[in-house]
């Protein structure tokens, strides 16, 4: 493990961590443009984070050590996740530490800590958010597993680096199975990252909150870390989607000259993804909470169809 690898791992991690709020800002800006208003500016999330870090943390009287520890744990999980996903290059030191299943487990760890912290203070909102979030997660996890099965079948591996390498080397082909899996993945991205139509990230009404309800009691630096972790999660999911479905441009292991192209490709893909996300949020309305199982069932269906199509059509699909 040479110094070059370590340096590039560090570079990728830091780049992703500091780019995540910018991506969030871009999505918000696109939404503003689509709604025919001038948005808050691309760098607004950074200003919000700075403001939050400067404030005093206000904790409830009965908040325990779990409550104070959770923002750090959640942020740590997300940083680890983004260093595992091949954002810029494959075969970085942290990549063999987890395959996609372990990545799903890592997200689950962060989510359980958030849910427990939400129940810690004993408010109605906290337990409401915890219960809904765990419900959405429980139904999304089988679908997510099925989505990952299809690229795993194609590349005979669940390690993200192997998947990226296999898929990036094939010519520009249209695999119907991957198309199905991609559709399912987009639906799951919306569900897991608390976007419309599953949850509204801009709301504070009890009826419509899932994620916001869980972080209601946090303030100052704790809230900053939670918000940053959420932005990082969105970026990681987008990066996973890019790695699975549009992997061209990711630099190969040790091929340093490919890095500038990889950065440019990454920025272009993130721009496109952010704009697409804003459009999707615009055309959908938020669903009732008990319609979410149908939505997730649909995603599961697409994922299973993708896998079955792959098995049926063999290498042609």
């Amino acid at each position, binding site marked *: 493990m040479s110094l070059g690898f370590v340096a590039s791992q560090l570079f990728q991690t830091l780049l992703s961590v500091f780019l995540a709020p910018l991506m969030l800002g871009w999505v918000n800006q696109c939404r503003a443009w689509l709604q025919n208003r001038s948005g808050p500016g691309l760098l607004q999330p950074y200003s919000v984070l700075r403001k939050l870090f400067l404030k005093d943390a206000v904790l409830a009287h009965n908040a325990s050590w779990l409550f104070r520890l959770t923002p750090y744990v959640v942020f740590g999980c997300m940083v680890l996740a983004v260093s595992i996903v091949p954002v810029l290059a494959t075969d970085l030191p942290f990549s063999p530490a987890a395959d996609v299943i372990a990545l799903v487990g890592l997200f689950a760890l962060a989510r359980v800590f958030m849910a427990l912290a939400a129940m810690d203070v004993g408010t109605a909102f906290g337990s409401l958010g915890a219960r809904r979030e765990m419900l959405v997660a429980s139904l999304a996890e089988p679908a997510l597993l099925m989505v990952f099965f299809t690229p795993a079948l194609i590349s005979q591996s669940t390690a993200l680096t192997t998947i990226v390498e296999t898929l990036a080397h094939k010519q520009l*082909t249209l695999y119907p199975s991957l*198309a199905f899996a991609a559709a399912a993945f987009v639906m799951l991205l919306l569900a897991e990252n608390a976007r419309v139509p599953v949850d509204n990230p801009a709301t504070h009404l009890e009826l419509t909150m899932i994620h916001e309800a869980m972080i209601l009691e946090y303030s100052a630096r704790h809230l900053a870390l939670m918000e940053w972790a959420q932005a990082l999660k969105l970026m990681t999911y987008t990066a996973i989607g890019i790695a699975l479905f549009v992997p061209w441009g990711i630099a190969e292991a040790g091929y340093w000259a490919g890095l500038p192209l990889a950065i440019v490709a990454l920025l272009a893909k993130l721009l496109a993804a952010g704009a697409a996300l804003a459009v999707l949020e615009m055309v959908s309305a938020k669903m009732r909470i008990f319609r979410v199982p149908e939505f997730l069932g649909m995603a599961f*269906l697409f994922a299973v*169809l993708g896998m*079955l*199509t792959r098995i049926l059509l063999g290498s042609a699909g």
Partner: protein
Amino acid sequence: MSNQLINLMAALLLLIAFAMLSQRRILRLIYLFAAQGFVLSMNTVIVALATKQPHLYASALITFGLKVIALPWLLHRLIDRLNVRWDVETLINIPTTMLVGILLVILSFNLALPISQLAGTITRGTLGIAMASVLLSLLMMITRRKAVPQVIGFLSLENGLFFAATSATYGMPMVVELGIALDVLVGTFIFGIFFFQIRETFDSLDIHHLEKLKDRG
């Protein structure tokens, strides 16, 4: 290249069949049916280009005219006059229907595997998908309560059969094709007439009213 496009069309067909299973609004069902017809005609054109059989172009044109324009327009007028918009209740709830649908897909894929290894056309991999969409249309006919979605299920069944024919034998002879098209058209007219009769007798298009016709004693 054409092989991939055909596989893509097949996948789209399957997708539309599933989407029809889960739709509650009848208007959307009609649009989905039109989309299905469109996919079908595109597929025929691609096969025609790949295998250089000119009669398939004519077939594609008929399909387009009939299934993308004529029939959806007819159905639209029908539901306007009958004033049905929603079919909220299905016999079994939607997630269960979809699970049964998946099992049917697995069944038809497995049944089609040995056949598709025997067939000699470029579209042989898609026989399983065609069979799957036929079974899914049957499922839709079984699980719906109102009469109009059942008819749409019947029509999409015919779509599936047409797709299967294209994939196994490069389309049907022209005569058979025209005959089937005429049959479908006539069938739709007759259905329309029946709907009005049913509506007049029972004041609703819910088919469980027809159960009153069973023999007592």
